[in-house]
């Protein structure tokens, strides 16, 4: 990896210019800005091939389609930065609202009032639902972290087990049927837009900004990047590795819960089989954005770029009338090709 890419880690290090040829410099810049270029290229393609690409309705759709997977990607990027992985996000996304609904319903039963209309229409407090969901996300993340750090179980296996277990719990807690979530605040969350920008996107941007600031300028960032860069050195330097890795998982859990709230508010319902396979999309967004699987590299801005590029590509394919088969094909090819090129560029620049 060139020093150029590690600039965010140690801002005090000057970016070295070693007098390389303009070709190599250009490749380095290309590597850094590939995604932005790709996005621009896609915008041009989209505008010229479809009358509807530059419309505000399409723009809104694009932002909305992007938001939930991007929040998941933001969450998993924290875990990737500390060289771990989290496969349970999509299940958590559904689990958090389910627990919220179940808990409130149980409480209501105990206190003898009703929050269910017609058997499965939930009318309880949305505020309580959101709070319980977020707490649940944090709790599940904490469990993941404990399993990985104290149980010494590989993150892949731990979060894989969590993913399966939560999916089973989702079916069990919902009894296999859907809950309609039609309380007015909740549906407001799913439908409201400001100047064509959906609320879910605004939440995503806010979360990204908070994440970006904490990763770049605060202790959180320094600790997480140092653990991801070289865990042994970090431990020797006195960093409480266990604490920070668990914290990364908790953050991922909380973000998954928030994603779940936005997701279910859009569908105005929560149902056990929803969200199947979304964890792979989220990881793809993060990885294409440049968050490294080896850890120590990546930022919310990168995740944003990765999400933007992929979603725009899929949007164009949809406008062209290509269904999910072609879209998955495109996603698969893009993932492989982008990483292959990225690796090639890295090997070139480090030679």
């Amino acid at each position, binding site marked *: 990896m060139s020093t150029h890419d590690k600039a965010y880690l140690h801002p005090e290090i000057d970016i070295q210019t070693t007098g390389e040829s303009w070709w190599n410099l250009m490749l380095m810049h290309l590597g850094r800005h590939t995604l932005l270029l790709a996005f621009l290229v896609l915008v041009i393609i989209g505008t010229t091939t479809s009358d*509807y690409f530059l*419309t505000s*309705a*399409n723009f*809104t*759709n694009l932002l*909305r*389609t992007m938001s939930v997977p991007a929040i998941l990607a933001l969450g998993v990027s924290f875990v990737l930065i500390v060289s771990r992985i989290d496969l349970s996000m999509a299940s958590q996304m559904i689990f958090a609202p389910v627990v919220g609904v179940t808990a409130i319903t149980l409480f209501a039963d105990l206190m003898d009032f009703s929050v269910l209309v*017609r*058997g*499965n229409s939930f009318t309880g407090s949305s505020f309580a639902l959101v709070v319980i969901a977020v707490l649940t996300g944090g709790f599940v993340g904490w469990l993941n972290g404990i399993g990985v750090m104290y149980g010494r179980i590989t993150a892949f296996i731990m979060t894989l087990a969590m993913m399966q277990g939560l999916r089973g719990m989702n079916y069990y807690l919902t*009894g*296999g*049927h*859907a*809950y*309609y979530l039609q309380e007015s605040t909740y*549906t407001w969350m*799913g*439908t409201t837009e400001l100047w064509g920008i959906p609320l879910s996107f605004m939440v995503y941007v806010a979360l990204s900004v908070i994440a970006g600031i904490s990763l770049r300028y605060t202790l959180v960032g320094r600790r997480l990047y140092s653990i991801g860069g070289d865990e042994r050195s970090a431990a020797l330097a006195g960093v409480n590795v266990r604490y920070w890795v668990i914290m990364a998982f908790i953050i991922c859990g909380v973000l998954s819960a928030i994603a779940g709230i936005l*997701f279910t508010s*859009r*569908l*105005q*319902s929560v*149902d056990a*089989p*929803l*969200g*199947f*396979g979304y964890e792979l999309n989220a990881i793809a967004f993060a990885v294409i954005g440049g968050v490294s699987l080896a850890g120590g590299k990546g930022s919310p801005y990168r995740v944003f770029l990765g999400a933007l590029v992929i979603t725009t590509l899929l*949007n164009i394919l*949809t*406008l062209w*009338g290509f*269904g*999910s*088969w072609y879209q998955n094909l495109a996603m698969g090819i893009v993932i492989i090709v982008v990483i292959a090129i990225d690796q090639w560029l890295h090997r070139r620049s480090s030679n």
Partner: protein
Amino acid sequence: MNISRTLARTAVGLVVSGLASGVFAETEVGIHTHLNNLIKENSHASRTMQNSDLDDFYSRQGFRDYLETYPVAELTGDFVWEVGMGKEYIGPVSGLPIKAPFSEYLPVPEGPVLNPDKQYRIGFAYHGANHPWLVSLADTAVHEASLHPNIRLEVIDSEFDDNQMGQVIDNWIAQQYDAIVLWPSREAPMGPPVDRAIRAGIPVVSLDRRTSSTQISSEVLGNFYANGLQQGLYLNHVTGGKGNLIMNRKPLGSTADSIRTGAFLEAIGDYDYNLLDSFHTDSQRSVAFDTTRNALQAHDDIEIVFNTGADEGLGALDAVREAGRLNSAPGGKKIVFLLNDDSREAVEEVRLGNIEMVSPYTPLLGGIGVRAAIRHIAHKEGLADAPPPKQILTPNLPMITREKMVINGIETITPAEWPYSFGPAP
């Protein structure tokens, strides 16, 4: 004088009572109305079942609510349907031969429609291109659209991801499509996108299953109730009202599951059946295979397997055959299989005697949906006075059994007489 008047009155009385007793019911009233009458007779909307376990199950799963709001009514435009009607062609998506029973229902003339100078775009959203029933649904929709050169039908398979189907619909709204026809997998998540389309002025027609939207332009549906009911009536007829049963059902919360299973329970609820287990098999053959195999391990006295679909039923049959338990019901009797959906493979198994009864639910409805959408556009553009009705009932179909029987006044159809099976030949 008096004698002839008396004779005449007696004759009239005989005919009337014949009608009332249902002897002439099918030919006089039509199979659709006759099944509707049976549905009303067996409804437990306002009474409990005599089998308390079944009643408990029925209440806990909330079937009453779903069944109450499910339309049981006459066909649009006084259409009367009989076995034998319908057009034959090769399905454009599956490449299989199709005889579409309802091609004359809610007709739209061939050729350019509406404003002949305008190109219309209609979106067709469904799931499960790998499912023979759903592919046939697409077949009929695509065929209908192909009859009208100024209509472009965009067919998108969302692979059972409700969120994706919502996004597809949002995309069509952004591109200002002229109408949307959809097959919703589950009711709850599809309501909001349909409402958004309606608000944007785009007519929406749902096929087969319902959405949670109250503003949808039209719903094409109706046969589920008669399906489940006939399965129950058949069962009562052949078992005399007792047996141990397991159920392979469609996803919980889907119209197909609630109405069929609910209707089935209504028909058998007053009898002495023992419900051993109930599974949800996602309409997938492999899942029903697994659940039936599990049930066979857990129970050695299964006598009846109730399935809400053909794929489930065939998966269950495979599992029973693999375990060598086809005749393992107490007393060395054969396990009774009840299915819905008249796929060619299922009907063939009826002919061979492995499956006792299939209650058809033809997927060949896509055409009705597209025609209803066209009529809605016509109304929207001022080319027609009235739009099609909000609920477009599909004709109730009689059940298929190996040999001809008369059950509760329904004359069953044999496999040889049924030309509408869908899917690949076995």
